[in-house]
């Protein structure tokens, strides 16, 4: 049983997304709060905006519409929430369950483990709480954004409001070769392609068909990390400007360990989106159509033959989508 928040979400004077509440994830042990971390609702706002543009309820002109948030209180009442409702005047509303915060909760638990503040035997719970925001804008600020890079086209048999993702097979081969060429160190780069908008079906298709390798930042790269830095972003921009290509996401590798190479029958599976990867995707590739491709050792292949998984935004969270080259997935 849930009930909507009572506090009004007044439009921000800056014209940006109105947020009358701050949301936090709390980690609890025996009812005692161990940590509290702030969470962003940006992926939910982006989900609402993108679908509104897809379905023609919002012009694709770069304006950032005012959106309001309203906590959906947990059955125990405030401050715990069961979800959050995001709504705007002309572009509908969507309700997101607290599962959209699960990744952040997992990251907070991993951080507690890293700091040895909990043990693996502890039984933990997590909840999301909303508290009225006490601070307002400090300066007169106006946000804007580039329109979504739609190309007019058709998306056969598409359901209204959906994004179909197609990864071209040749690109999969190229990235596999790049990963094999960097056996012990992570490699990373941009994915490029086209975003096709079918106005009649009010749906879109993302065609991912090329890539650029990128240089790591000052933090370098190793078998377990790849740092972004200003040199990375500058190189990315130069590549995009020189080619005229559209950035549609990123890829990186999770190299196998040495033992994987020595044992072709190894069943280790290292292809997943880590909490650091989720942070990268949220910060650098926040648009609703942007994807993350992770390549590396998968259970069903030997270390010398990397597998891949594709992750995409869906309903305010990141989900693993089937990688079906040349056919795509709805």
């Amino acid at each position: 049983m849930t009930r909507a928040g009572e506090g009004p979400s007044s439009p921000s004077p800056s014209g940006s997304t109105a947020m009358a509440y701050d949301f936090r994830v709390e980690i609890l042990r025996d009812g005692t709060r161990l940590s509290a971390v702030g969470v962003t609702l940006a992926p939910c706002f982006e989900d609402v905006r993108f679908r509104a543009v897809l379905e023609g309820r919002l012009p694709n002109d770069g304006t950032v519409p005012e959106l309001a948030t309203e906590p959906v209180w947990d059955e125990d009442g405030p401050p715990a929430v069961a979800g959050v409702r995001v709504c705007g005047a002309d572009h509908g509303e969507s309700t997101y369950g607290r599962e959209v915060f699960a990744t952040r909760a997992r990251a907070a638990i991993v951080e507690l483990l890293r700091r040895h503040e909990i043990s693996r035997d502890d039984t933990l719970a997590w909840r999301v709480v909303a508290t009225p925001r006490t601070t307002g804008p400090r300066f007169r600020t106006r946000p804007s954004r580039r329109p979504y890079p739609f190309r007019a086209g058709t998306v056969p048999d598409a359901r209204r409001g959906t994004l179909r993702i197609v990864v071209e097979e040749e690109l999969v081969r190229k990235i596999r070769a790049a990963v094999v060429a960097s056996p012990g160190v992570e490699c990373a780069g941009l994915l490029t392609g086209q975003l096709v908008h079918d106005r009649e079906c009010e749906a879109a298709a993302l065609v991912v068909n090329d890539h650029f390798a990128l240089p790591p930042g000052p933090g370098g790269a190793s078998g377990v990390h790849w740092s972004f830095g200003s040199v990375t972003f500058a190189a990315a921009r130069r590549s995009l400007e020189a080619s005229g290509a559209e950035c549609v996401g990123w890829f990186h590798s999770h190299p196998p360990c040495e033992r994987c190479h020595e044992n072709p029958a190894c069943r280790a599976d290292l292809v997943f989106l880590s909490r650091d990867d989720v942070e990268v995707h949220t910060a650098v590739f926040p648009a609703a159509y942007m994807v993350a491709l992770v390549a590396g050792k998968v259970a069903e292949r030997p270390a010398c033959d990397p597998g891949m998984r594709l992750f995409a935004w869906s309903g305010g969270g990141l989900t693993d989508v089937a990688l079906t080259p040349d056919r795509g997935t709805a």
Partner: protein
Amino acid sequence: MEQAVAIERPDLVTLTVTDWDRTRRAHLEDVPSSATVAEVLDEVRRVMELAPETSYQLVLDGRQLNQMEMLSEAGVGSGSVMEILPEVHAG
């Protein structure tokens, strides 16, 4: 005949901050030049809806700005266009 005259106050600056690929922008008006880089960063984070758990830096002409400095000290004048870049790494 009267003419309207725009008076520009030298202690207030107008700024633009973009993300790494120029997709998102924040336009800030009438910002005191005595404001710190950190205050501008906080405001841009809010208006761009950036994740609270991620660290960001403001960069002007390839130079990372010291968050403790006032805009005037950091060489940020009216009309400046800065970048906001996340400090992240893939795992």
